[in-house]
């Protein structure tokens, strides 16, 4: 029986298909208005890649903001649980994972068995997230990838002191329009520093434990990861496909349930 994990995020829906202990395939689709339809679509894509059809033998665990509303999943689990499992599978030495998603950031502390020990998240505020970065890139009138590249070349870091995304916006605008203008690379570095400091505050709340892994779409941002490593004082671990880590965790729980005979 195949194990399927579905992670419904605010921007994208990810699916992982596993059999026994191996990942067979994956799929990623933009989350539409109908979460159920998106999930079905993504699952179909993933299953097709394995050569199986959608009407085969499989057990599904769903998670993410739309996780509970999927009628065809066998079980829904919290993101935190899936993050812990997925991290344990992909990066067994990690005891902490930072999920930098589009709308919220979550820090999960896990034990050697991939069980959640503690977690903390930023749900009230946009300052530590992907959407914030997108907004900032827009203000600087450059694509996100360009911002990342620029930050790596920064000589300094512009001071962006506001903890609030709304005020940070005006600070960035003032840097861009200053005379002489603050170098773009410095602004990019400054924005990332501000995002990272929110993340660090979250991490300290649960207590930093090595190794620290990073997941979520924002983890693909080289500039951010660079600054995060500097703040931590040691390099952070990156899984091969950070966007899929949560879905991997969901799939692992699905496999555990199959082993328990629940399928």
């Amino acid at each position, binding site marked *: 029986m195949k194990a399927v994990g579905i992670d419904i995020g605010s921007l994208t829906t990810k699916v992982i298909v596993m059999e026994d202990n191996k990942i067979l395939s994956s799929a990623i689709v933009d989350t539409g208005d109908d979460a159920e339809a998106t999930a079905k679509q993504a699952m179909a894509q993933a299953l097709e890649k394995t050569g199986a059809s959608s009407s085969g033998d499989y057990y599904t665990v769903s998670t993410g903001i739309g996780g509970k509303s999927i009628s065809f999943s066998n079980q829904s689990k919290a993101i935190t649980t899936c993050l812990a499992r997925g991290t344990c599978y992909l990066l067994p030495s990690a005891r902490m994972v930072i999920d930098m998603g589009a709308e919220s950031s979550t820090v999960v502390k896990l034990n050697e068995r991939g069980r959640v020990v503690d977690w903390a998240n930023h749900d009230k505020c946009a300052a530590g997230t992907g959407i914030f970065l997108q907004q900032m890139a827009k203000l600087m009138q450059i694509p996100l990838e360009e911002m990342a590249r620029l930050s790596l070349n920064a000589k300094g870091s512009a001071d962006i002191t506001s903890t609030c995304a709304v005020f940070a916006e005006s600070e960035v605008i003032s840097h861009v329009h200053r005379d002489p203008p603050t170098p773009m690379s410095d602004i990019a570095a400054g924005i990332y520093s501000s995002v990272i*400091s929110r993340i*660090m*505050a979250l991490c*300290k*709340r649960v*207590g930093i434990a090595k190794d620290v892994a990073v997941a979520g779409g924002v983890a693909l941002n080289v500039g951010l990861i660079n600054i995060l490593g500097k703040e931590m004082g040691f390099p952070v671990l990156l899984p091969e496909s950070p966007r899929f880590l949560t879905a991997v965790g969901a799939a692992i729980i699905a496999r555990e349930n199959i082993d328990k005979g629940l399928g």
Partner: protein
Amino acid sequence: MAEMTTESKSRLHTLDRFREITNTFPKTSQLLEHKQSGKKVFGWLCTYVPEEIIHAAGILPIRITGYTEETDLDDGNAYLYVNNCSFSRSCLQMGLRGEYDFLDGVVGGSTCDGARRLFDLWRNYIGTPFYHVLTVPRKYTEKAHALYLHEVEEFKEHLEEFLGFKIADEVLRASIELYNESRSLLRELYELRKQDKPPITGAETLEVLNASFRLPKEIFNQWLKDLLDEISTSRITHSGRARLMLVGSVLHNPEFINAIEEQGGLVVTDELCTSTRYWGDPVILNDGEPPTQALARRYLNNFPCARMFPSDERFNRIIDFALNYKVDGVVSQIVRYCVPYCHDLPLLTRRLQEHDIPTLALDVEYGTSGSGQIQTRVQAFLEMLEAKKK
């Protein structure tokens, strides 16, 4: 718009080395030398810790403070949570980051919630070899004095046990006299600010005070004597749009006072944990009385912290100072979440109003340099005071 004017272009150069202490703390050369010579350093917090006992034991007492400037307090926040005052968080963060690793001991008083929790966390997360907290009563009654004396004696015994020798009465008396000398020198400095055109600003005074709890008193007293000498021969004076008194809890950053004085609000006196509350009263040694008793009496009766009851004691002293220094207005700077001082504010404002002294209430973060909003509000306050004078 008349701002603060300083006559004579020269500045007091004996002030420079005081400033240097603050800039290099906690890695000041005097501290490092002290440690290198094999002697011990203790950190203390709150004006209810009898410093002389530490000094008499041959240990250098320095005051535990946080970072001079307002800064990110992620580590402090993780342990003390964001709703405890930024002062306690700042102190704790310095401790957590190892900046106080050179301390051989910490001594505190059960004075307020922030200090109390700071010490709870210090005990559990920062392993300073000697640790002691004194219970400080909130009253001035005879029974309270008896309890506090007991606490002071217990602290002395604990310290003697730790060190393996007794602190002789004569040695303690000598320490008391040395500290009394500091206090009277500081009083001399303050008296100068009663003048219509004081020779020293509020910001400069704070620099002197900051150094006072970061240096061996022997050195500090000499430096202060040198400063008083220089002042007596200099022609530097300051005047402003209004004479102000600064009240509140903890303040270490002279930039904050600078921001007020640059706009013409000359701070001629103050009531802060780091100023008059520190040196306010001398220890009065009576014949035939054990020095610990004299110490306990002085420390409990000293210029009150807002935690003491009844609050009128503090209010009366503030009004005394305000009247003696011919103050036009009072600026209250309270660190956010400083509960005892917040609670006092409505009543204090009323009492001052009875003497026709207006109050400006500023809600700050510890270490603030006083820019932006604060300047705007000070500006408005000064304009109001000027209008009042006419």
